[in-house]
């Protein structure tokens, strides 16, 4: 415990000597440090220039409204506690002082054993208050930091939508914690080639968000160097593996929509498979070699898979927060409900389709707290159907 600063207001000069003498052991031992004031102005001045933990005051100092002053101090210095001294033994005065905000009281003539106990108890309360205050400040700082991280994370996402040359995308993420480990991305590689990414970092909060930032930046940078998604992931994986002491990893899909070939060329690093929905048909999982999540092992070789777009279809990339969204009893949303919503809303534009999906998950969860980030990217590619000329 650090030294407790006590300010004593008493117009009797002898009090100073008495305090110094009675508390000499605790003063020498660094438990208490006493300062003295003999009038109100002096008190106010001292409080202004130095922090005190405890204020001891005679309730009956000449020409002063002791109770009023104590209640004013309580508002002004909420972490300082007041102990009043009353010569009266007058229960009404003491009751008024306590109601006005005094923490404790002693009766004159002072029994210094009792007074010491009172001071010790008050000092303990002040210490606890200070601890609580410090904890609350720390929490508020952490919460501010999380807000900044969440904003930063949101700001690195490319926005929700893209619409160009028949391609329409809507992507969204709902983090479970303040800062999530999911991310998505889409970016043009050329006039006719569009990169899309869906990823989920193991864990949540700031460490996951940092790892997500690194992974996202690496994927986008390497996508400009390596034109094959698999080759891009080979290099992202090796870089993440070499700079990864915390055994974190990220599951991800990276695909390139080739608008000349009307194909999606994609590679998968341990991520959930893409869903394809064609009108009038049950949704289909695009099975492919799932590789291993990025950052786990140096020796992974990623492979490309190809999907040919058909008229009217759309593809859905997502994280496990969708099928694994749980209700209060721990039942999971699962692919059955997921596919059902996709099929029922297949003709809607990606933004409305996503809204319908999120709404359906919310309804299913029924107020159960969200345990994982929910992230989706829906892409519709409106192909012009070439008329059959015979």
């Amino acid at each position, binding site marked *: 415990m650090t030294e407790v600063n006590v300010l004593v207001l008493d117009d009797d000069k002898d009090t100073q000597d008495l305090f110094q003498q009675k508390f000499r052991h605790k003063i020498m031992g660094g438990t208490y440090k006493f300062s003295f004031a003999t009038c109100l102005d002096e008190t106010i001045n001292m409080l202004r220039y130095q922090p005190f933990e405890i204020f001891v005051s005679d309730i009956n100092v000449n020409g002063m409204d002791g109770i009023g002053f104590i209640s004013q101090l309580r508002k002004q210095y909420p972490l300082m506690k007041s102990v009043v001294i009353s010569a009266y033994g007058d229960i009404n005065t003491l009751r008024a002082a306590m109601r006005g905000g005094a923490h404790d009281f002693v009766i004159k003539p002072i029994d210094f054993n009792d007074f010491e106990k009172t001071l010790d108890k008050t000092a303990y309360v002040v210490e606890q208050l200070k601890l609580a205050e410090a904890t609350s400040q720390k929490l508020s700082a952490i919460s501010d930091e999380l807000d900044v991280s969440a904003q930063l994370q949101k700001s690195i996402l490319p926005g929700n939508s893209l619409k160009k040359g028949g391609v329409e995308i809507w992507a969204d993420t709902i983090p*479970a*914690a303040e800062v999530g*480990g999911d991310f998505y991305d889409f970016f043009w590689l050329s006039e006719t080639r569009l990169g899309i990414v869906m990823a*989920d*970092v*193991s*864990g*949540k909060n700031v460490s996951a968000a940092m790892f997500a930032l690194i992974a996202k930046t690496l994927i986008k940078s390497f996508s400009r160097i390596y034109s094959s998604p698999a080759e891009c992931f080979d290099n992202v994986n090796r870089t993440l593996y070499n700079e990864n002491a915390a*055994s*974190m*990893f990220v*599951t991800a899909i990276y695909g390139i929509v080739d608008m000349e070939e009307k194909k999606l060329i994609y590679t998968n*690093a*341990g*991520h*959930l*498979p893409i869903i394809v929905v064609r009108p009038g048909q049950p949704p289909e999982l695009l099975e492919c070699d*799932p*590789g*291993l*999540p990025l950052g*786990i*092992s140096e020796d*992974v070789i990623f492979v490309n898979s190809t999907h040919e777009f058909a008229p009217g279809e759309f593809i859905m990339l997502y994280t*496990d927060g969708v099928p*694994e969204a*749980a209700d209060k009893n*721990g039942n*999971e949303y699962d692919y059955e409900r997921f596919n059902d919503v996709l099929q029922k809303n297949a003709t809607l534009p990606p933004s409305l389709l996503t809204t319908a999906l999120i709404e359906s998950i919310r309804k299913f969860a029924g107020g159960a707290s969200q*345990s*994982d980030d929910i992230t989706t990217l829906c892409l519709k590619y409106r192909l012009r159907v070439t008329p059959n000329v015979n």
Partner: protein
Amino acid sequence: MEVKTSTQDGVTLVVPVGRVDSSTAKAFEDEVMKAANGNTKMAIQFDKVDYISSAGLRVILMAGKKLTAAKGELVLINMPDKIFSVFKVSGFDKIIKICPNFEEYKQSFN
């Protein structure tokens, strides 16, 4: 979630019970890494696990790395289909040994 740890036939047997998600992963990590300390043979039994998230997979990965570094081995046993599909879809079945049950695992080193 709770984790029970015991030693059977020279193997450290870890039995997590409940959900291993991001809210319980830290406790799971502490228990698993404590159990992995100084051991070479460790089995994690999954039949009482309802759910495992990527945060849980990370713990498995760390334990696997630690045991491999100690020239030991981590084996996952009694895995329900639902949990196995999480390992399969993430490719984890390729890097961590999975055995049907403790008896078969024991035969592999006897």
